């Protein structure tokens, strides 16, 4: 699959194209959006508590009179930052551990695989709760918790890939000409595993954003008054009957973001990984 072919396929699939447009807008919102919103996301306005959506507050205001649109725009930064950073970190750690386990085999493999299995033995949200609960809550603890619960999945994937890639003739050839282990791992095996890794990574970003939202909802993520989508829902949920927009809009923001990531991930998987084609 060439890059141009891939771009062409994205262009001809309306659903995927929509997802890509949404994600691009979202990324732009996270980076420069805060410059364009009219209200300070932290500014309380006691004269306009829990106002329904109107022309002055497009998505209404919350229980402290803060503008919901502006809080959602600021919250996008945290969701995307955590989701993407956690993907990168867990991909890096998982790739390294998986390469080592798969390439060296033997006792190293048995020991490392046991470690992967232990981390995979926890339901992910529960382990994330356990990890973030023992740390001071915040951006760093949320990222660390999500990375810790997800790296082992990538490690197991990379281990499997490495097991098959190391039997390839080009690895044998580079061994014969005396290439170092590091060179074989990072110049020969890793590049061949990369497309699948990127697919796996893109399929997981949505899940990471959901996990961050859940941690924030439980009060274990970035702390108030900084707005996050998850905490906006939990802080306003007692007003669901009288002022549902305070809960509905942040939830829509999460849903649309995660749906877009999942559509894109599914598409990439179907295109790049023949094994998954159904």
């Amino acid at each position, binding site marked *: 699959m060439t890059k141009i072919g891939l771009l062409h396929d994205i262009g001809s699939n309306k659903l995927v194209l929509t997802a890509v447009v949404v994600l691009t807008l979202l990324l732009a919102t996270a980076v420069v959006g805060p410059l364009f919103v009219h209200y300070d996301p932290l500014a309380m306005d006691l004269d306009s508590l829990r106002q329904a959506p109107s022309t002055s507050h497009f998505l209404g205001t919350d229980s402290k009179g803060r503008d919901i649109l502006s809080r959602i725009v600021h919250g996008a930064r945290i969701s995307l930052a955590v989701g993407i950073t956690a993907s990168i970190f867990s991909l890096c750690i998982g790739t390294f551990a998986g390469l080592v386990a798969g390439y060296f085999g033997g006792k190293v493999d048995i020991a490392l695989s046991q470690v992967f299995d*232990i981390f995979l033995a926890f*339901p992910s949200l529960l382990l994330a709760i*356990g990890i973030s609960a023992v740390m001071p809550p915040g951006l760093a603890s949320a990222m660390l918790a999500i990375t810790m619960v997800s790296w082992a999945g990538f490690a197991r994937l990379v281990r499997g890939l490495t097991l098959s890639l190391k039997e390839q003739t080009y690895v044998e050839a580079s061994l014969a000409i005396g290439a170092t282990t590091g060179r074989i791992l990072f110049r020969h095996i890793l590049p061949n595993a990369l497309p699948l890794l990127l697919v796996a990574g893109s399929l997981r970003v949505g899940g990471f954003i959901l996990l961050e939202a859940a941690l924030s909802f*439980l009060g274990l993520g970035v702390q108030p008054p900084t707005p996050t989508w998850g905490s906006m829902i939990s802080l306003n949920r007692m007003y669901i009957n009288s002022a549902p927009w305070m809960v509905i809009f942040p939830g829509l923001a999460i849903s649309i973001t995660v749906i877009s990531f999942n559509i894109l991930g599914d598409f990439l998987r179907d295109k790049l990984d023949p094994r998954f084609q159904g």
Partner: protein
Amino acid sequence: MLLYIAKRFLLFIPTLFGITLITFLLMQSLPGDPVQGMAGERANPETLARIRAELGSDRPLPLQYLGYLKLLIQGELGRSYYTNRRIADDLLQKFPNTLKLALSAILFASFGGIVLGIVSAVKRGTFWDKTASVIAVGGISVPVFWLGLTLMLIFALYLRWLPPSGMGNGSIVYLILPALTLGTYSLAYISRITRSSMIDSLSQPFIVTARAKGLPELAVVAKHALKNSLIPIVTVIGLDLGSYLNGAVLTETIFGWDGIGRYALDGIMKRDYPVIMGVVLFGAVVFVAMNLVVDITYRYLDPRVRVQGTE
């Protein structure tokens, strides 16, 4: 088969050690005295002394870990900071409620997911298939807690068909919204697996044979294709059921369901660390045990795997 089960049980043991090691290290990394951490601030001196003797915070870490294991084997998960009740007792008391919710949710998810998956596999490429795939992507993308609140808003607060929260006296109407909320993610996932597994089966030669001998389409789909697609579906159902404590934390919180999930949230809110760790440990053990059951069922269901296993 027995040998296989025995082998899987042996593999279970190092995993249990690993899980307890992680919860132990998490407890260790708490600020303050780990004995107080496990016993709670209002523990009586007796409990405190016993836990201190076992954990022996002055001893080297590996010995402390062994002490922790010994406590766990005695069923001592520690005490809540606030109620000073044994966490193991609390968990056992609340588990039936969570189990009831989880079973209702998986029933809804399995039925809905399989139907949805079959429809989209049989009507592949049509409007129905597309609708089903939108539901499938939506179901795995929507946050559980928001879905719960939205369902509550629509069906309990606006339409007033169902109670918004609480458990009633075990009345089934209280179970509906929490079960729908908890089950939606699995429903979406099961429908995807069913779809791809069914598409696979429907392209097999035995389907052509079944059609050729003039069986009605319904019998072809339900009897021949579905039966041969069941293994991956059953696997997913089992694994999802094992991970329901994840969703239960969020679902039970929203609907005031008195199970392990809400117990965990109370622990989080009050920074009641022994409670949090107790739930984490409990959830992991349930999850691993469920994996074990799924593996064994898998062997049992699929003769091909069994043959490979005995070779």
